[in-house]
C-alpha cells in the first residue's frame, strides 16, 4: 500500500538544526517543511495540517509554547514534539498540558530522532484512521436516518394499512391507514400486545399463525368491520423470517375491498336475475312442447298450433334477451367498437319507423312527426338505431289499439332533443321509479301478453350515458308516456 509521504514541519531558529533534521528525515522518505521563527511556524502550521510538528521552545520572536498553543487550537489532534536545549520540569509540564505529544531535550542523535518520529507517525496514523472511521460512521448515520425517515414517510403515506408484530405478539410498527381501515380510535403504543387492539377475528388468526410451528407463506383473511359503516377489508399476513431461518414475526397488509365486494354482489345479483329470465321462456317452451309431444289433449290440433306459435314467440323473446345481455356485456367490457359519424336525426328516426311498418299496421297506430331541419349528432349509427328501436318499439308495444305516437325533434341548447310520446298504457309512479332497473317490467293486465326482456331501457340508458346525454320520462297510468332523449348536438 503506498501511502502519501508524511509531512513534517520543523520550527527552529537554528539553521543547523533545521537542515540537519531535514536531511535525516528526508532520508526516511518523509517530506519536511521548515520555519525559521515562531511567527512563521504558526503561519505555516495553521495553514496546513502537518502530520508531525517539531517545535523549538526557545525562539527570539515567539516562544515555542505559543506556537504549540496556536497549532493545537487549530488542530487538536496534531502531534507536536517539543525540543529544547533548556529542558526544565516547568517547561515540560507546561507543554504537556498544552497537548504536546513528547518533550525531548536537545541534543539528540539521528537514531533517536528517527525512532521518535517513527512512533509519533504511527500514532498519527492511528488518529487519522480513527478520524476516517468516525467520518464514515457519521455519514452512514445520516444515510440511515435519511433512509429510515424515507421509509417511515412511505409507510405512513400508503393507502393500505401496515402492521408489524414480533414473535412475542407485540406491535412493532403500524401506519395511519391501519388505524383508519380497522376503525381503531385509540392510539396504539409500540410494544402493546395485539390482542388488546385488534378486532377479534383478526386477533385469532394472528394468534394461530404466531403459535403454529409450521411455516406459512402468506394468508388472506376477509374482515368485516362492523359499525358504523358496512366495510370489508382484506388482511394479508406474511411471516418475517430472520437470518437464521426462524420466524421472528409477521407483517399484515390491510386493504379496503368494500367497493369490490359491492360490485361482486351486484354482479352475482345480475347473473341470478339473468338466469331466472333465461329460464322462464325456456320453461314455458318446455311446457308447451311436453303437452304437444304427450298428446295430452288428444289429437285436437288447434290448440297444439296455438302452443307452437306461443313457443315460437317465447323462443324469439329468448333470443332477443340473449342479444340484449350480449349487448350490455359488450358495453360494460368496453370492447364495443364505435364508428363515430355525423348522423341526421330525422333520417335515423324515419329509418327506424319504416322498420316497424308491420307492427304499426297491426296496432292501427297513427304516427305524427315534427322534425326541426338539419339536426345532427356525432355517434355510432348502429348504436343510435338500437336506441330508437327500443324507444319506438316500446311506444308501439305498450300502446293501445288505434292509438298514436308523436315524435318531435328540436334543438335545445347544446343538445338535440328527441321526444317520443305515446297514447299507451302509461305507468304508475311506482313503476316509473323502477323503470331503469335491470329486468324490471311493469306487471298488470295490459302488459301480461306483451313480451319484453326488461333490459331495453337499461340499454337505452347505457347508450345515452355513453354519449353524455340525458333521458327524461313523463308518464300517466292508462294515458301514455313520453320519453325525451337529449344528445349533444354536432354543429
Amino acid at each position, binding site marked *: 500500500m503506498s501511502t502519501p509521504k508524511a509531512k513534517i514541519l520543523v520550527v527552529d531558529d537554528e539553521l543547523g538544526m533545521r537542515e540537519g533534521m531535514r536531511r535525516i528525515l528526508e532520508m526516511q522518505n518523509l517530506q519536511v517543511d521548515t520555519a525559521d521563527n515562531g511567527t512563521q511556524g504558526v503561519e505555516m502550521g495553521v495553514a496546513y495540517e502537518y502530520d508531525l510538528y517539531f517545535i523549538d521552545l526557545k525562539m527570539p520572536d515567539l516562544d515555542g509554547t505559543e506556537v504549540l498553543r496556536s497549532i493545537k487550537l487549530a488542530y487538536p489532534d496534531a502531534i507536536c514534539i517539543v525540543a529544547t536545549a533548556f529542558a526544565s520540569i516547568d517547561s515540560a509540564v507546561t507543554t504537556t498540558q498544552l497537548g504536546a505529544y513528547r518533550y525531548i531535550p536537545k541534543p539528540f542523535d539521528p537514531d533517536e530522532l528517527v525512532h521518535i518520529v517513527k512512533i509519533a507517525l504511527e500514532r498519527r496514523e492511528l488518529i487519522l484512521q480513527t478520524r476516517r472511521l468516525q467520518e464514515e460512521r457519521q455519514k452512514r448515520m445520516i444515510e440511515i436516518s435519511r433512509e429510515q425517515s424515507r421509509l417511515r414517510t412511505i409507510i405512513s403515506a400508503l393507502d393500505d394499512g401496515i402492521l408489524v408484530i414480533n414473535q412475542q405478539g407485540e406491535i412493532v410498527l403500524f401506519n395511519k391507514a391501519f388505524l383508519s381501515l380497522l376503525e381503531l380510535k385509540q392510539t396504539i403504543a409500540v410494544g402493546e400486545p395485539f390482542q388488546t387492539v385488534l378486532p377479534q377475528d383478526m386477533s385469532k388468526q394472528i394468534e394461530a399463525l404466531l403459535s403454529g410451528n409450521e411455516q406459512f407463506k402468506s394468508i388472506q383473511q376477509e374482515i368485516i368491520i362492523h359499525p358504523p359503516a358496512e366495510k370489508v377489508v382484506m388482511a394479508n399476513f406474511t411471516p418475517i423470517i430472520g437470518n437464521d431461518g426462524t420466524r421472528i414475526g409477521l407483517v399484515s397488509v390491510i386493504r379496503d375491498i368494500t367497493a369490490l365486494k359491492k360490485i361482486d354482489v351486484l354482479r352475482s345479483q345480475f347473473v341470478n336475475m339473468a338466469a*331466472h329470465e333465461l329460464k*322462464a321462456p325456456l*320453461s*314455458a317452451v318446455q*311446457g*308447451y312442447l*311436453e*303437452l304437444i309431444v*304427450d298428446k*295430452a*289433449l*288428444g289429437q285436437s290440433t288447434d*290448440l297444439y298450433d*296455438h*302452443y307452437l306459435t*306461443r313457443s315460437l314467440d*317465447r323462443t324469439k323473446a329468448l333470443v332477443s334477451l340473449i342479444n340484449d345481455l350480449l349487448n350490455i356485456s359488450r358495453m360494460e367490457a368496453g370492447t364495443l367498437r364505435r364508428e363515430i359519424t355525423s348522423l341526421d336525426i330525422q333520417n335515423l328516426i324515419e329509418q327506424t319507423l319504416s322498420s316497424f311498418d308491420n307492427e304499426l299496421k297491426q296496432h292501427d297506430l297513427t304516427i305524427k312527426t315534427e322534425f326541426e331541419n338539419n339536426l345532427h349528432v356525432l355517434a355510432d349509427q348502429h348504436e343510435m338505431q338500437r336506441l330508437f328501436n327500443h324507444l319506438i318499439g316500446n311506444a308501439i308495444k305498450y300502446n293501445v289499439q288505434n292509438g298514436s305516437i308523436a315524435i318531435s325533434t328540436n334543438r335545445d341548447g347544446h343538445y338535440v332533443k328527441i321526444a317520443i310520446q305515446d297514447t299507451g298504457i302509461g305507468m304508475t309512479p311506482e313503476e316509473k321509479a323502477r323503470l331503469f332497473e335491470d329486468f324490471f317490467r311493469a*306487471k298488470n*293486465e295490459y302488459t*301480461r*301478453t306483451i313480451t319484453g326482456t326488461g333490459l331495453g331501457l337499461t340499454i337505452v340508458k347505457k347508450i345515452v350515458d355513453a354519449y353524455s346525454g340525458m333521458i327524461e320520462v313523463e308518464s300517466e297510468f292508462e294515458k301514455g308516456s313520453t320519453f325525451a332523449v337529449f344528445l349533444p348536438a354536432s354543429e
Partner: protein
Amino acid sequence: MKKILMVDDDVDLIEQFKPVFEQAGYEFAAAYNSREGLETFKKFEPDAMIVDLSMEHFDSGFVLCHRIKATERGQAIPVIIMTSAGQDTGYRFGTDTAEEKNWIKADDYLEKPISPRDLVQYLGEKIFKA
C-alpha cells in the same frame, strides 16, 4: 263439476294448465295476481285453489292465502301453494305440522315444476278423493 281457481302471473303456465284441467272434467278459472285472485275467488266460488307465491311482490301469494283463509268459504276449501320460490331462494316452506299449515295459511305446498297432468292426478287422488 269441481271448480278450480289458479292464481299465477305466468301466462304460459295458465295456457298449459287450463285445457288439461278442462279435459279432466274441471271448471277452470285463472287470475294473474292476488287482487284478481281474491275477486275471482268471491265470484267463482272454487272448490280448490292453486296459488303461486312470488307474483308482483314476493309475499303476495301469502297475503292472498291469509285473506282467503279469513273467509268462511276459504276455511272450507283446500288452498294449495304451488311455487318455485324454494328453487329460487333455497328456502322451503312446509305444511307437515298444523303450526306450519297455520303459518302459511295453506293446506299443501307443491314445488314447481309440476306438469299439468301430475297436478290433475294429485288433485284427484289427494284433494278430491271421495
